[in-house]
């Protein structure tokens, strides 16, 4: 998935130095990748941003049974470059006419998580008129970074990027306020006999990769 792109690049580079196998990354939204895999994409491994797509692939036989696992757990943060840093969370309650950007709950797991969080906080009804929906978390963050929205509920991994304008507020949403953001990987039928791909999956579960993933702002199982 595209939100994992820079992390995946780091891991792939490490994998290549260790094994000599080159890794080619094709990034797109999980929905697109899913459709592509169903229609013969020459992909070996899917790193999805959710657990649904790998499960469906697993069940339909497009993925190799038993190779599915969670490689990262997303962390939702409330990000703003304009809000009062001290009262970040409570500021949201009285955000007034300010826009709040979330990823589209229909298409993005972080969007669903954001919705659950807002509902559980009792803010959903009052905030609905202020919500704007990004295609994904990246777009939700664009809305906030460009000043068009005051808040964005995005992935923690994104907010660690050094090139972003400094946040006045980055409040980590408690993990129990939404369903866990499991990001699962699966070996695809295309690579059923490909040992390098299997090696990559093992590597992804290994300590080096887990460390990288953790440093990139995700949880690990």
């Amino acid at each position, binding site marked *: 998935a595209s939100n994992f792109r820079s992390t995946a690049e780091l891991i792939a580079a490490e994998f290549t130095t260790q094994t000599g196998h080159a890794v080619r990354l094709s990034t797109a939204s999980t929905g697109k990748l899913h459709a592509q895999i169903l229609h013969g994409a020459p992909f070996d491994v899917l790193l999805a941003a959710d657990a649904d797509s790998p499960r469906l692939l697993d069940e339909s036989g497009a993925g190799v049974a038993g190779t599915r696992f969670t490689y990262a757990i997303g962390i939702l943060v409330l990000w703003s470059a304009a809000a009062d840093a001290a009262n970040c969370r409570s500021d949201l309650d009285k955000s007034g006419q300010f826009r709040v950007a979330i990823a589209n709950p229909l298409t993005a797991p972080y969007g669903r998580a954001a919705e659950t969080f807002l509902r559980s906080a009792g803010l959903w009804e009052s905030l609905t008129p202020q919500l704007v929906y990004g295609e994904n978390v990246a777009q939700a963050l664009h809305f906030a970074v*460009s000043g068009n929205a005051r808040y964005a509920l995005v992935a923690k991994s994104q907010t660690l990027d050094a090139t972003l304008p400094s946040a006045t507020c980055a409040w980590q949403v408690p993990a129990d306020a939404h369903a866990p953001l499991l990001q699962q990987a699966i070996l695809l039928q295309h690579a059923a006999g490909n040992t390098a791909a299997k090696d990559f999956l093992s590597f992804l579960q290994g300590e080096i990769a887990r460390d990288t993933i953790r440093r990139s702002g995700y949880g690990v199982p």
Partner: protein
Amino acid sequence: MDLGPLWLSVQLASITMLLLLLIGTPLGWWLARTRSRLRPVLQAIVALPIVLPPTVLGFYLLILLGPAGSLGEWWFRLSGESLTFSFAGLVIASCIYSLPFAVQPIMSAFEAVRQSDLEAAWTLGADRRDAFFSIALPQSLRGYLNAAILSFAHTLGEFGVVLMVGGNIPGETRVISIAIYDQVESLQYAAAHQLSAILLVFAFAVLLAMFALNRQWRQQ
């Protein structure tokens, strides 16, 4: 089946089309008639928006139209409203993105207007403005039709720019292209097929009507 997004799309496409025909008229006329050396430069600039991927163009428009952007700030001070995430913003973004598809056909049609006809109109007492409206414009109706069709269809199908600038707000900026996109992304293929079919049938009907009109003009 929620047809709100279709209705919104039709509004957006129609308004964009009309605005582009309005903008395309002086621009196309100038481009068609000028002997200025700037002509190729301006033509290239007009064509430039389509070179950027829509989402990226949308990204830059987001900055330009946002409260921090020059245009957005000006608009905000004027109207007290934000350009981004609003229908007005969508219209502006669509106009920029579809501009070349309106300007090119209009310009071509204006280029085909014979100088000799304009001269005849002048000697019959029509000033430049009058000759434009009574000769050049009616002789270019088919160019306008092509411009209308291309810009309408292109706006109907656009979603990258619109999604970025509009923020996918139901009832305000969630147009049909975004709605279908969402369904494909969330793997609801059946619903996507259905909505696509509706859009296609609708668009086909509109296009067919326009082209049939064209045929009538031609036969006159």
